[in-house]
């Protein structure tokens, strides 16, 4: 096969293979990505997000949002995170790039709401003051929406 004649095909295959290898190395080996998770939140002491346990929102729960590097989560909790306490906090010593978001009515006002089938979109603010725990001083609050 002449290389020039099949340049398109060879280039495409080579690039795709390269990307697959890089992708595998990043996600499967190095685990170089961030995980987002609903961590525990005590509504009595913190400003928490309110989540619905069902579509009709008959039962609710409180949570704070945590973003941690996956590699750190693996190191702390392994594959199964459900019973791992470390996932609920940004550990000062072990977590280098962890952010925990609490609900801020001024900044995240519309996120601090009870979402039901009837009042979808209606805002009900939480009175407590907001607070953010993070181990990286440059981290800023998230602006995108987590869908329930």
């Amino acid at each position, binding site marked *: 096969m002449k290389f020039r004649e099949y*340049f*398109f095909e060879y280039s495409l295959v080579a*690039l*795709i293979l390269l*990307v697959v290898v890089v*992708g595998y190395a990043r996600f499967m080996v190095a685990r170089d990505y961030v995980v*987002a998770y609903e961590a525990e939140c005590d509504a009595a002491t913190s400003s928490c997000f309110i989540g619905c346990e069902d579509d009709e929102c008959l039962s609710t729960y409180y949570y704070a949002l945590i973003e941690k590097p996956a590699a750190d989560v*693996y190191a702390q909790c392994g594959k199964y*995170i459900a019973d791992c306490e470390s996932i609920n906090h940004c550990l000062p010593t072990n977590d280098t790039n962890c952010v925990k978001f609490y609900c801020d009515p001024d900044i995240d006002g519309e996120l601090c709401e009870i979402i039901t089938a009837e009042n979808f979109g209606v805002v009900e603010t939480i009175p407590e003051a907001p607070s953010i725990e993070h181990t990286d001083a440059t981290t800023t609050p998230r602006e995108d929406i987590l869908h329930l």
Partner: protein
Amino acid sequence: MICPYFPEPTFFIFAEGVPELLYYSHIPAIVVALLVGLFVFLNARHLLLSRLLLVIALSFSLWCSINLTLWTNVNSDSLLFSWSFLRILSSLISIFSIYFIYVFLYEKDVSPKLKGVFLALMLPMILLAPTDWNVAGFDLTNCDAFLFEGFWYKYYYVSLGAIAMIWILGLLVHRYRTTTADFRKQIVYMGLGIELFLFLFFTLVFLASYLIDIGLFKDSRIELYGLFGMPIFMAFIAALIVRFKTFNVGMLAAQALVIALVILIASMFTFADNIYNVVLIGVTLVLTGAIGLVLIRSVKKEVKQRELIEKQARELEIANAQQENLLHFMSHEVKGYLTKSEAGFAAIVEGDYGDVSQDLKGMAQMALTEVRKGVSTIMDILDASNMKKGTVAYKKENFDFGKTVEESVNDLQESAAARGLSLQFHPAAEVLTINGDKDKIARHVIRNVIDNSIKYTEHGSVTITLSKQGDLAQMLVEDTGIGITPEDMKHLFTEGGHGKDSIKINVHSTGYGLFIAKQIVDAHGGKIWAESEGAGKGTRFIVQFPLS
């Protein structure tokens, strides 16, 4: 990391809590794409078009398989790795669809420049796939990565889909305008198939993601409907193969239908919810498959037989043409020799070589008569051959049909008298003018028919009656001869047609006379036929020509 709120799948892709349509939309689409793609490729490996179709089919199948695992699996590492690769496959589908349509329409490969453009369009999707531009993280709560998808990357791959649809539409319209009517039908089939596929695939899959992003929709199930575009596209491909033998591949409609039916029934397994349904579907599938096989075999046999008959007909046609040419050639050559002999004998009879003995003169006269009969026979055969080939030219003019018939009757009086027959002529009350080749009508029609009656009448009379029948001039030749049996009647006006008894009466008959007469009458818009009560009961020949 395992998503905590979702069950782990069994056998890699089967999980609880997934939409019912998930397996029905993915698995049949994968099967159909691979079946058609591989069938075409394996039957036409040398064609670039079949290879491109295979690339599209494989990309789509891989995309569907990965998407299925994204719905059912709960390991964040593998999900993200798969997620990063998914958009590359989408871009492959877009670009290779354009490539495929181009090759289909113009039957040639694209230029290296265009390949460069294709590569440039795909480059951002490929190079940025494992980076944060594509996907930066994973949402363990919802077990997906929608939250971390790169905005520009996502819209770029959707734009590639839109570019593909518009580009393909432009190519189709341009080619439709400049090509033959036959190929236009193929363009419509292929265009509809691929545009529907791209539209459903990109629009619904993108729409699902977009509507969830803006909070209008919670349910991403709408994307599942987008996958039905592939079976639709493959149905169009199958129709093209059956009707137009596109990809130079042949497939019977029966085969395509049976396969489609089997896939349809098998896909019902994906939503069978109890053992009874599974068993019923299984039984239906086996029965359909068995009956389908029998049907395909029987249809294949019939098609084979039909093809064999067509092949034999073609070979027969060739053989006939060759035989005709040989006959023509030989007749021509023999005629040449006889004509020279005729000249020689005529010269002796006419005294060109001085006085000769009476015996010699008599022999020469007899030889001249026989040679002339031979030449006439050869001429008949040649004329018949020319008429069959359609290479006879007629010199048409208006002439008095009645007068021409009378002249022929007068010429044949001697011949009739020699056989002891009475030759009677009843002219028409008015002048019958027809338009035609006077010489050929006189020699091959009028004379031939009357002469025929004389030769096949042993005693009695031959009566020729002219009349006007509406706007037709009619000649009726009635004899008291040997008659014609119903069996002989079938072959009367055919080439070399002889009756069983007629050959005993007239051994010199070539069997071409009435065939030639019919050809000439037909060429002049007339009719000729014979009537007889049977053997020994005489014959009536009727010849009609349109009046001028």
